[in-house]
């Protein structure tokens, strides 16, 4: 899917300061070597299986299926991974790669805190230093994760610039990387940023679709009709889609955060409302004004509150291979509550966006159809915020 310059169709590329160019070139060389290295892959598999708890379960949501009365629904349980989200898949890969490259320090951005927690976890495990940048607004709405990162030995730096959310955390992590490259790897958390990050992160997350495919063939003897995942930068979605891209009969549906609605300014639905641009090292779609100023996006979900989308998603959209749909805060919160009550599974508010879309489409599908929803993370971290959304003031 990638050409040598890190392009996905017209998207991708390496739009970064000269100071970082040798760092990304070095990273690409190292990755191209280790991805085919037997020892590296053996170590990574052991970490994923014995430490992170892979393979994650593909669970048949019987009650939900019966309640909706349409397509059969399976949940890919990335929420059951160690640290509670899919983020650990990528982080273990990158941390191991960084270690092989002789780096001793990991820096990362985080929105909801899941990627920050995963990075802090890998750093603790591998004896590396860790610094996480997090928008100040997000440190408040995800206070529990801030504590978890500190508990794991990471330093958390609240970012106060711009909208004080994920976009600003990425900018600040990039700034930090330009000032300290020798011993530091920027452990980017999504399929975004300059090449080779969108490819590296996708490859490490592709384990999700690889497993879904095997598990589905085992359970149903056939491939699913649709795979649904939430999309911010898009790492759990690309991970869920990747091995199905070649299977044209499988519909791939990315669920974007529409915030208060795509017809309002309080939205983060990039593909629905953005236009082509260049930002954070990549060409892709971005929410921006007519002069290219990046828009202050909004979503109830700190993990999807980002004005761009990964370049491979932009390309899958262009060629019509994947479909991207907006889901509002209200719909996501309803789905959060629905899955908790119906299946006894509390999904992350990010993943709830994908559940919400399934609630819309499953009843319209025949009973012999099958859809898979990736539950990218667990929702414990969101309980206080959702309670507040419902007007209940609880203390964590």
């Amino acid at each position, binding site marked *: 899917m990638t050409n040598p*310059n890190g392009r996905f169709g017209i998207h991708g*590329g*390496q*739009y*970064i*300061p*000269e*100071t*970082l*160019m*040798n*760092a990304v070139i070095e990273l690409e060389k190292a990755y191209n070597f280790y991805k085919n290295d037997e020892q590296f892959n053996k170590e990574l598999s052991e970490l994923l299986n014995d430490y992170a708890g892979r393979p994650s379960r593909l669970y048949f949501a019987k009650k939900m299926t019966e309640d909706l009365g349409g397509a059969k629904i399976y949940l890919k349980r990335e929420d059951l991974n160690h640290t509670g989200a899919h983020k650990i898949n990528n982080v273990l890969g990158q941390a191991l790669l960084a270690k092989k490259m002789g780096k001793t320090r990991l820096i990362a951005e985080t929105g909801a805190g899941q990627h920050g927690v995963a990075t802090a976890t890998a750093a603790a495990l591998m004896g590396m230093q860790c610094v996480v940048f997090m928008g100040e607004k997000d440190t408040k709405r995800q206070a529990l994760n801030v504590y978890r990162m500190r508990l794991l030995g990471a330093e958390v730096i609240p970012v106060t*610039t*711009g909208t004080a959310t994920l*976009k*600003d955390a990425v*900018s600040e992590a*990039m*700034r930090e990387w*330009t*000032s*300290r*490259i020798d011993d530091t790897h920027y452990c980017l958390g999504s399929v975004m940023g300059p090449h080779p990050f969108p490819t590296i992160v996708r490859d490490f997350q592709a384990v999700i679709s690889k497993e879904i495919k095997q598990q589905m063939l085992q359970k149903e003897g056939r491939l699913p009709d649709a795979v649904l995942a939430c999309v911010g930068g898009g790492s759990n979605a690309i991970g869920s889609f990747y091995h199905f891209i070649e299977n044209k009969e499988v519909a791939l549906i990315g669920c974007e955060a529409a915030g208060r609605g795509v017809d309002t300014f309080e939205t983060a639905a990039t593909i629905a409302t953005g*236009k*082509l*641009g*260049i*930002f*954070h*090292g990549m060409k892709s779609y*971005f929410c*921006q004004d*007519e*002069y*290219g*100023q*990046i828009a202050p996006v909004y979503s109830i979900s700190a993990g999807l509150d980002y004005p761009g989308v990964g370049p491979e998603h932009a390309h899958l959209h262009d060629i019509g291979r994947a479909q991207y749909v907006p889901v509002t805060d209200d719909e996501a919160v309803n789905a959060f509550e629905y899955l908790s009550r119906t299946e006894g599974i509390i999904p992350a508010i990010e993943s709830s966006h994908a559940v919400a879309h399934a609630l819309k489409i499953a009843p319209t599908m025949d009973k012999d159809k099958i859809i898979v929803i990736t539950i990218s993370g667990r929702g414990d971290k969101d309980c206080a915020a959702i309670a507040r959304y419902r007007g209940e003031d609880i203390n964590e």
Partner: protein
Amino acid sequence: MSNIKKAFENGKAFIPFITCGDPDLETTAKAVRAAVKGGADLIELGIPFSDPTAEGPVIQGANIRALRGGVTTDKVFELVKELRRDVTVPMVFMTYANVVFSYGSEKFISTCKEIGIDGLIIPDLPFEEKDEFQPVCDKYGVDLISLIAPTSHERISMIAKQAQGFIYVVSSLGVTGTRSEITTDLGAIVDVIRKNTDVPCAIGFGISTPEQAKKMAALSDGAIVGSAIIKILEKYGKDAPEHIGEYVKSMKDAIR
């Protein structure tokens, strides 16, 4: 021939950076004229961007103030037209790739030519991506300025060979902002540049005092100063131009 060459004909060049519209465009116009009077050889005009990832806190602040004041790319073009009635020193824009791209690169760069902008500095456009704008820059005769960093190593000759206008040598790792000390072996970087091109090179990032400027200019063809000037704007607001004029004079005197 590139108009930018003129900037390097009066001894070592002093290049001030000013963010357009901080705190407003009238002040920017006055600040530019004061800098020219103080001896500036080339003016680097920043078009503000919402998320300037190569800037430190000082220039980030200027970008935010300017955007809050309602500055747009079109208003900056008007400012340059007005300045060009009497300002003859070369002027270049410093802005981010998305500002040029979203305006339409053809429309943006042809307008630059029309209003008298001689070059573009785009910090998030490395050598590998310069084809994004280079063909259009060539078509209209606007120089696309290359940057070389302390981490460029074996990339220096490749970049220098294709450089035009002048080369912006980044003095230190990290983002823009004043520094008490610059430790990069800039002499060695400039040596490699000289072996590969006749295009002049100026050093920027971290320079604020006349002593630093003198040292940097001695190693190259000029010194670029941004954050120190933005700090004057931050401190004096609308009254900054007079202070900027004095500051530029002290810097130009030091490197002459």
